[in-house]
């Protein structure tokens, strides 16, 4: 591939500079220059320069697959203990939109053991077809066997798009599948669209710690694979009357590769469990001053029956465990209500909670960046405000006659084998 600026045609207008997603174009002395080390030959500058045609891009003949052979939007259904993961339902909603835009079917891959009932559920939530692979070797998630079955199904049926949830399972599985198929994969998407011109999937995801949003395409390879963060898309309505097909694959007599084995599952105590799924999260930061004060966060969370979150600073100070950390190197949450207490709001924290529906920030420093993303701001001392808030919430709860749940700190360990 090569790209060059035709000096006689270039007027130094800088339209190409603004168009380049990678900052690879500079204009000096009224002449555009392209830094080849940064350029990815996407052609955005060429499009921007339509008027002057001063940039020439020569693309190598890339080996492209016959894209017309790839049809259908597919979703990998994540299930645990006989329950479909929320993110799978959210993907069915968005998958349905994409499939309708492309006039292609929406299909689901469901792997496990004795899941017939769930297959029907997936149809009610929008699937046209469910590929159901059952075997006791698929009863729990193991990367090897799941990769084998999924790549087998994809090679046989050639879907156009494959979507997975960006969960622990999805993030471990998707790169293995994409690598075996030698196709492109975009991680942690927060937006999906179909380009009306090329019919490519436009995949949007946060880049550089959430400072930028990148739009990524996979123009010459199929399927186009993307993982999607939980709680980005809405759950579709359940339609009991929807009709779809269930196609069974029997792997009972088929020996699947399994070079890893699940020995035991340890569930977190109710107090820390699943802040990624919680409807309300109360999070504490360094503004609390010391470890003992972290209790007021837990009290408020308990009164709201929500989860406890923390900034990286609070975790590093040892006030609470890493399981509670929200942000770039911790968990991403998207609750209905996020209350940030004594958290300044570094970008690394914001990327983990900025998609919450309502954000409340309580902080002493009126200039704290957390206030830039907050719906409701209280400038004040967390140690003063939070206990008052907790008391008022309790009063409201009593008025509503809703019992305040007591939390169980018991960890449960389910030993499968050893």
């Amino acid at each position, binding site marked *: *591939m090569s790209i060059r600026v035709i000096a006689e045609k270039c007027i130094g207008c800088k339209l190409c500079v603004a168009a380049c997603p990678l900052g690879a174009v500079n204009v000096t002395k009224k002449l555009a220059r392209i830094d080849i080390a940064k350029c990815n030959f996407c052609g955005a500058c060429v499009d921007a320069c339509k008027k002057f045609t001063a940039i020439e891009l020569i693309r190598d003949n890339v080996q492209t697959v016959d894209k017309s052979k790839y049809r259908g939007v597919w979703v990998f259904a994540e299930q645990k203990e006989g329950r479909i993961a929320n993110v799978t339902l959210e993907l069915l909603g968005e998958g349905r939109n994409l499939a309708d835009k492309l006039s292609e079917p929406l299909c689901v891959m469901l792997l496990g053991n004795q899941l017939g009932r769930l297959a029907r559920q997936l149809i009610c939530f929008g699937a046209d077809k469910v590929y159901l692979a059952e075997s006791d070797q698929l009863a729990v998630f193991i990367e090897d066997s799941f990769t084998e079955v999924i790549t087998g199904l994809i090679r046989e049926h050639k879907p156009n798009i494959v979507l997975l949830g960006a969960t622990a399972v999805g993030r471990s599985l998707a*790169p293995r599948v994409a690598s075996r198929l030698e*196709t492109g*994969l975009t991680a942690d998407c927060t937006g999906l669209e179909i380009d009306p011109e090329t019919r490519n999937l436009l995949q949007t995801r946060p880049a550089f710690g959430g400072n930028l949003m990148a739009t990524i395409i996979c123009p010459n390879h199929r399927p186009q694979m993307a993982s999607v963060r939980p709680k980005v898309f809405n759950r579709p309505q359940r339609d009991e009357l929807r009709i779809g097909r269930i196609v069974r694959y029997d792997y009972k007599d088929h020996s699947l590769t399994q070079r890893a084995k699940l020995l035991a599952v340890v569930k977190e105590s109710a107090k820390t469990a699943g802040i990624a799924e919680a409807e309300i999260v109360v999070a504490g930061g360094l503004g609390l001053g010391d470890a003992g004060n972290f209790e007021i966060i837990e009290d408020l969370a308990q009164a709201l029956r929500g989860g406890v979150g923390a900034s990286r600073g609070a975790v590093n100070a040892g006030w609470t465990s890493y399981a509670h950390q929200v942000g770039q190197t911790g968990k991403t949450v998207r609750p209905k209500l996020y209350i940030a207490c004594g958290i300044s709001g570094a970008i690394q924290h914001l990327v983990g909670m900025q998609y919450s529906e309502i954000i409340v920030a309580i902080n002493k420093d009126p200039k704290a960046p957390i206030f830039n993303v907050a719906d409701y*701001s209280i400038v004040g001392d967390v140690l003063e405000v939070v206990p008052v808030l907790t008391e008022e919430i309790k009063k409201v709860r009593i008025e509503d006659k809703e019992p305040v749940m007591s939390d169980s700190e018991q960890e449960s360990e389910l030993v499968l084998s050893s």
Partner: protein
Amino acid sequence: MNIIVCVKQVPDTLEVNINKETNTLIREGVDSVINPFDLYAVEEGLRLKEQYGGMVTVLSMGPPQVVDTLRQALSLGADNAVLLSDIGFAGADTLATSYTLARAVKKIGHFDLVICGRQAVDGDTAHVGPSLAERLDIPHISCVIKIHEVTEEYMVTVRLTEEGTEKVKLSLPGLITVSKGINEPRFPSLKWKINAARSEIEVWSAQDISADENKIGLKGSPTRVIKMTTPQHNRQGQVLEGSTQEQVTDLITKLRQAEVL
């Protein structure tokens, strides 16, 4: 136990600046650091070596200045370091990166375990570890926070999930990606610092690892960034006024109106 640890040099993200005109990251003047999760990977490699013997080789791909990052790993106690640097590697997405790393791992030869950080804080994809395992045809476990038991044939690990943790047995040779919480990385020692300064770091080109030129760099990358935009925060922020009691009462009223309480 022979261990290969993959590391990435990343911009010190606390100092990220955006060029408003071009909507791109200003990389000039930004310090580079070793990816924080990779520090845990290096530390875990060193601990396993101290307990079970063997060698720790640190591997990275990037421009020539990445030798600084590798020297940092050597100053912590790694035995060898290899840098993959070639203009042909530029513009690689995670598929091309994992192919390139796999070629290098094969050239390094015998290993029992590959360790990667769970994700790089600049790209945040968490793809390269599992993808590399696939390229090497070995099993992997992501987000490991504890290693319980190690034998020649397998190791027992604890990985993070949404609900808690899982104890998983992994056949060796295998690959793990490690998360914060697995250890507390050490500081460089003077002895190893001197060693590191004297060490030659091998730099391998595409030719050195017999890479297929269609599978590396931009050419080997199926994905392409076509647009970068600055995220918009569309919140109509409202500062609540009055005494603490008034602010709290006001807040509760608003939250009830919004039906979150």
